[in-house]
Every structure is written in structure tokens, then in C-alpha cells.
């Protein structure tokens, strides 16, 4: 079907060679299991300084998302995957903008809000 033009832009999961790779799936699954167990361990442990636990959880989650993208979705920065990679980068940009933008704006509004008692008195 596409024996000739395979060097050009390819979609994730569509490479004939890479997608037929059982070892890649099993490696990814192994990494994912280790990272998941590490997350659940980190959430309940007292070995890690308590305020550092959320940072550790975030790092483990981002690592596991990377493992899923690379090993299961076959996304890479190879030259023939430029389109997919750019779309992914834009998606991550929008996600970051929405999540962190909302959190910063709402925290700011919350901090600047008049205390509730004063607000109630003004409405009288």
C-alpha cells in the first residue's frame, strides 16, 4: 500500500515497523507499572519530606505520561513525525495555559476578595 512514501510524515502508531514491535509494548508496560507503583508508594510514605511529595508525584506522573507517549502511542521527535510532534507541543501549550492560567487567576481573585462579613454588611 505505502511501500514507497513511508519516509514522509507519519501519524502516531502508524509506522509499519515500530507498531509491529511487541518488545516495545512490553518495555513500556514495565516502565509504566514501576512508575505507577512508585506513585502510590510516594503518596503514602513518610520517608520523603512531606512538602516534597506533590513535586515527586508530579515528576512521576509526567515521566509516566512520557512513557505512554513514546512506547504506546509511538510519538517521537524523528524528522518524519514533525506534524505529530508539533501538534502535541501545541496541545501541551494549550493545556498548560488553561490549567495554570485558571489556577493563577482564581488564586489571585480569591486573595483580593473582600472578606465575606464585610461583603454581607455592604449588601444591607
Amino acid at each position, binding site marked *: *500500500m*505505502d511501500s*514507497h*512514501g*513511508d*519516509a*514522509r*510524515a*507519519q*501519524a*502516531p*502508531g*502508524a509506522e*509499519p515497523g515500530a*507498531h*509491529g514491535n*511487541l518488545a516495545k*509494548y*512490553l518495555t513500556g*508496560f514495565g516502565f*509504566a*507499572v514501576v512508575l*505507577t507503583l512508585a*506513585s*502510590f508508594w*510516594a*503518596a*503514602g510514605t513518610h520517608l520523603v519530606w512531606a512538602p516534597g511529595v*506533590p513535586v515527586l*508525584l*508530579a515528576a*512521576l*506522573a509526567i515521566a*509516566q*505520561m512520557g512513557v*505512554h*507517549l513514546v512506547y*504506546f*502511542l509511538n510519538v517521537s521527535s524523528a*524528522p518524519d513525525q514533525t*506534524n*505529530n510532534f508539533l*501538534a*502535541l507541543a*501545541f*496541545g501541551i501549550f*494549550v*493545556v498548560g495555559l*488553561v*490549567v495554570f*492560567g*485558571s*489556577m493563577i487567576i*482564581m488564586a489571585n481573585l480569591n486573595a483580593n476578595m473582600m472578606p465575606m462579613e464585610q461583603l454581607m454588611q455592604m449588601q444591607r
Partner: protein
Amino acid sequence: MSALDVTDAPELLRDDEVPLSRRGPAATRDVVAFGFWLFLLSDIVIFATLFAGYAVLSGQTAGGPTGVQLFDRGRVLLETACLLTSSLTCGLCALSCVRRNTAATYLWGAVTFLLGASFIALEFSEFARLIAQGAGPTRSAFLSAFFSLVGTHGLHVTLGLGWLMVMMAQVTTLGFRPMIIRRLLCFSLFWHTLDIVWIGVFTIVYLGAR
């Protein structure tokens, strides 16, 4: 014909040297998978808005129960195990489909379905328990955000299970046509993406609860 035209003729150049304007249309499979990839990214943006809502509202319990009091980490670990393993078996199903191995496609498809259905059953019973405890979505802003986020993910998994059944029926009736293989590859991408979203859910909602 000038000398320049001859050296520029696509058949005389290696694949990666063919100018973009002369390569002709991309293979259908690449176009389909790229379009589906864009859909998945837009789906992730939907989840990002729900995550943002949850992050803002997670402390607003209105005097009601907090996440730590409500969530059962053992159950969440079980749910995660179901979804993660189903992601692997779904990949194996797509692999068998590409290799046109009928028996293996059905086997891994069935395992994927059972694991996905176990995930949904566990999540449904958790929701039922919360609502029975009086911690339904109407109790507080925190619980509204929780049920929207986790419920939307559960809805996606449920729809995915329906899609998987349709795909198995199409493999039976239509066989391994290129169209069917493309659809199963898209399903596999969808299922892996739901697992990526679930990583965010269990990290932020369940393990990050305080």
C-alpha cells in the same frame, strides 16, 4: 525537457530528497491517524479544562467531606491496574490485527473489554457508595468538580467499550480490510490516550487529595 527537470524527477531521488510539492498525497492511513491524533489532542484540552476546574475547587468542600475522608487508595490502585493492563492488551489486539491474526485479535480484544468493564464497574460502585454516603455531586463544589472530571473519563471509557464491540463485530463481518485495520489503530490510540488522562486523574485527584 531540460537537464534540471531530469535531475529533479522524483524517481531519481531518495525518498527524503523528494520536494514536498512532488510527493503526491500522503497515504490514507497516515492522514486518518493524523486527523485522529488532532481529535485526541482536542479531547485532552477538554480534560484540561475539567482538571483546571478541579484544581480551583478541590478545597471548596462547604463543610462536607474532603477527598482524604472519601477516597480508597486500594480501589484506585486496582482501577489503575485494570486500565493499564487493558492498554497493553489493546496494543496487542492492534498488533494482531495488523498481522491479520484473527484468533489473537479476538482474544486480546476480549481481554481489553473485560479489563475496561472491570474498571467501569469499580468506578460505578465507588460513585454509588459516595452518593449513598450523601457525598453526591450536589454536596459541595469539590464533589461537583470531582464527579465531572472522573465521570467524563468514565464516560469516555464506556464509549470506548462500545467502540471496541463494534470493531470486533466489523472484524467478523468485514474481515481485515485496510479500512478496518485503520479503525482499530485509531481505537488503540484512543484507548492509550484515556490511560494517559487516567494518570493525571489518579495523581491529582486520588493521590494528591489532602
